[in-house]
């Protein structure tokens, strides 16, 4: 079993783990923005950069993203060195220039001593930091790939295909849930949900009429797992009532 040293602490780890996995397990603070446990690590936000060296290669050191770097026995990691802090401060400074109104970024940047951005702020911009979590969750986890990115470089943006309401979207709102800066707008009423400029009817409980998911998500789940058409007909509250009914009968025996 490999052992690595993080900030002077000798820590046991498993083969195939990343440096961030070990940090998380040992409650070593490493900031992240584009990382999510359920989604494959991406290494885009560059906030989790750490400094590494190895006794086997004296004099060698490098800066890597903890979320992707696989552990190897003897690795020495610094999560809070001066250079790492400077890098994070620059990244946050750049993000603050991109999204000057995002409270999440403001707070993180302040932690690294950046109160106001040193660069040219984007005044008309939204709070999207292009971490790509929404696109990746839709593609990798949900599996519908309803949204993507458009353009590249400085003009890159998260976008629906052809900037029209996405036809493949099932309205599950997982993208909005994982968004670290809460950019994705969801309008939720008992009857419908609006996301990505598309309106989805909610699938209502046949007994009480409250709803959890959209009709599209219901159809998609049923088709995916080959379930009976009425599988999702009841809400959690009504299902509970039915369960209680059964338990009552059981205890009346």
């Amino acid at each position, binding site marked *: 079993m490999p052992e690595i040293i993080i900030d002077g602490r000798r820590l046991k780890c498993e083969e195939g783990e990343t440096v961030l996995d070990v940090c998380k397990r040992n409650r070593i603070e490493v900031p992240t923005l584009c990382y999510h446990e359920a989604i494959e690590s991406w290494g885009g936000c*560059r906030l989790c950069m750490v400094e590494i060296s190895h006794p086997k290669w004296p004099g060698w050191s490098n800066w890597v993203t903890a979320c992707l770097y696989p552990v190897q026995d003897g690795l020495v990691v610094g999560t809070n060195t001066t250079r790492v802090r400077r890098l994070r401060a620059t990244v946050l400074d750049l993000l603050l220039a991109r999204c000057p109104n995002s409270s999440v970024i403001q707070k993180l940047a302040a932690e690294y001593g950046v109160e106001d951005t*040193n660069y040219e702020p984007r005044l008309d911009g939204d709070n999207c930091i292009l971490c790509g979590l929404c696109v990746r969750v839709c593609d990798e986890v949900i599996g519908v790939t309803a949204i993507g990115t458009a353009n590249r470089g400085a003009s890159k943006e998260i976008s629906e295909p052809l900037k029209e309401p996405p036809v493949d979207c099932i309205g599950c709102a997982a993208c909005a849930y994982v968004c670290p800066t809460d950019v994705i707008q969801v309008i939720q009423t008992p009857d419908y949900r609006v996301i990505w400029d598309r309106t989805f009817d909610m699938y209502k409980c046949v007994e009480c009429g409250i709803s959890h998911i959209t009709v599209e998500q219901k159809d998609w789940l049923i088709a995916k797992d080959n379930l009976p058409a009425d599988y999702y007909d009841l809400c959690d509250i009504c299902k509970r009532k039915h369960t209680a009914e059964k338990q009552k009968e059981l205890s009346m025996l």
Partner: protein
Amino acid sequence: MRFNNIKQLEEHREQALKNQQKVKNTILVCGGTGCLASGARDVEDELRKQLAEQGIDMEVELQVKITGCHGFCERGPIVSFIPSGILYEKVKPKHVEEIIEKTIKNDKIVTKLIYKDPATKKKVQQYEEIPFYKHQTRIALRNIGQLDPTSLDDYLVRDGFKGLVKALGMKPGEIVDEIDKSGLRGRGGGGFPTARKWKSCIKAEGEKRYIICNGDEGDPGAFMDRSIMEGDPFDVLEGMIIGAYAIGCEEGFIYVRQEYPLAVVNLRKAIDILREVGLLGENILGSGLNFDIKIARGGGAFVCGESSALMKSVAGKIGEPRAKYIHSTEKGLYDLPTVLNNVETFVNIPIIIEKGGDWFTQFGTEKSRGTKAFALVGRVNNTGLVEVPMGITLRELIFEIGGGIQKGREFKAVQTGGPSGGCIPNELLDLKVDFDELTEQGSMMGSGGMIVMDERTCMVDVARYFLDFLKEESCGKCVPCREGLRQLTALYDRIVAGYGTLEDLDKIEWLAQDVMIGSLCALGKSAPNPVLSTIQFFRDEYEEHIRDKHCRAGVCKALTRLVIHDECIACGKCIEVCPTDAITGAKKTVHVLDQEKCIACGSCVEICPVDCIKVEPVKVAGEVAS
């Protein structure tokens, strides 16, 4: 026709050689992009037309071939002759009649079409004697310009597939050892030892392996790979087949940019021919090797030249790089072990196998063996495609092969390694061109772009130009590259517009360093090279821009004030060229320039015979409208 074994291939080669010997004269018309643009196709048509009219047989005794790029693009269209070795430059259709009459029929030379050395003023008629070619060592480019790229017979006559034949008699491990012995390093820019890459792929576990040829040459001004793919496609394919045999793979891809249509056409033709004769497909030459190659066309994104982005693109996904803490030799295309080499690397393989690794080590330096092709462009006299042994100095490359700076101006800097290379100043001109020495000076050899700049180039503007290019070409995945380059460009825009401060300069340096170590892929990591190297070597120019509001090269329009001095001979030439009629004047009076109308385009400076129009600082930022 299908070669089922090596013997049949060799028999065919003999036959092709015999046919070749019958040909008394071959006319090679350069079909490189440069020559095509200057009308090579018209020359070819005219040649064929007139030869046909005169009833000259163009099948057996005389052949007209349109070839790949000769490299001497400055002098195109180029027409050369085999076996006489004569080279004509700047040939126009009107010259065809004379060429046929004198050179083809009577073995005489058309004097006005041969190259004149500007230094010695001597006329040079032989291809090999022209200084541009004389100092070159052509290995990767050995066939280009010498054969019809779509003819298998031409390739076989020039020893084609000898490397493959020899390789098939070796064990895969022996091939890798031979490459190892040669010291070949990747020509795409990274300079990773090819043999080590192959070995690591062979070691990696996976149900399948892939081999990919990187033909996504995106550096502005570079066209080495393009010329090879257009002018010698069989060589690339042979290198890939040998590679496939060595690492044990059955499927290969060539990733070619959308912008290289001729490369795609020629490669496709070559692949079709090889499939037909059984050099691609199942059981190649009876050796049991099954291998086929597909062409994947890129959409023209610069970042797709990066290995992991390229593999994503081949797989049909968005071309975004990934962190390569696990190498693509282990987890590459479709997460399977993949070897990715550059076009130029692959064309070196067949000849190394044919002649042996030791033969290759005679070229180049201890750590950088062999030769390297460069696209020599910019303010140099002989622009074009050159191949030189590594270890040659920049001075030799620019002044001997390149023939020095245009119009006798002063050399200022050379930018090596494409947009993310650094600028090397005059005092470092004796640096050796190889993988390591340039890197030490904050530049890199890269894939081989070489842009020469003279005194009329503004170094601040150069850095800004490349930043702007990379800002647009960044994939936008990681923050330092996407946001950092945007902010760097914004800071440069301030300086160029005359609003920069010395604080901005510090900010640029600080941010550039962070972009360098913070970015995800090589694009971002090397993007600050032009910034940091120009600041290192040309800091005074930056300070001039900031403090004195002066761009000495007269490139940054907002910082350029053109003034006509008293030496003016009142020739009126500047009045003629001025696009905004800003200059007025009569005979025998010093001309007057109206600053209000002047857009500082520099046309007058260019044309003035006595250099009396000078670039002077503006007094206040914004004084000259940009």
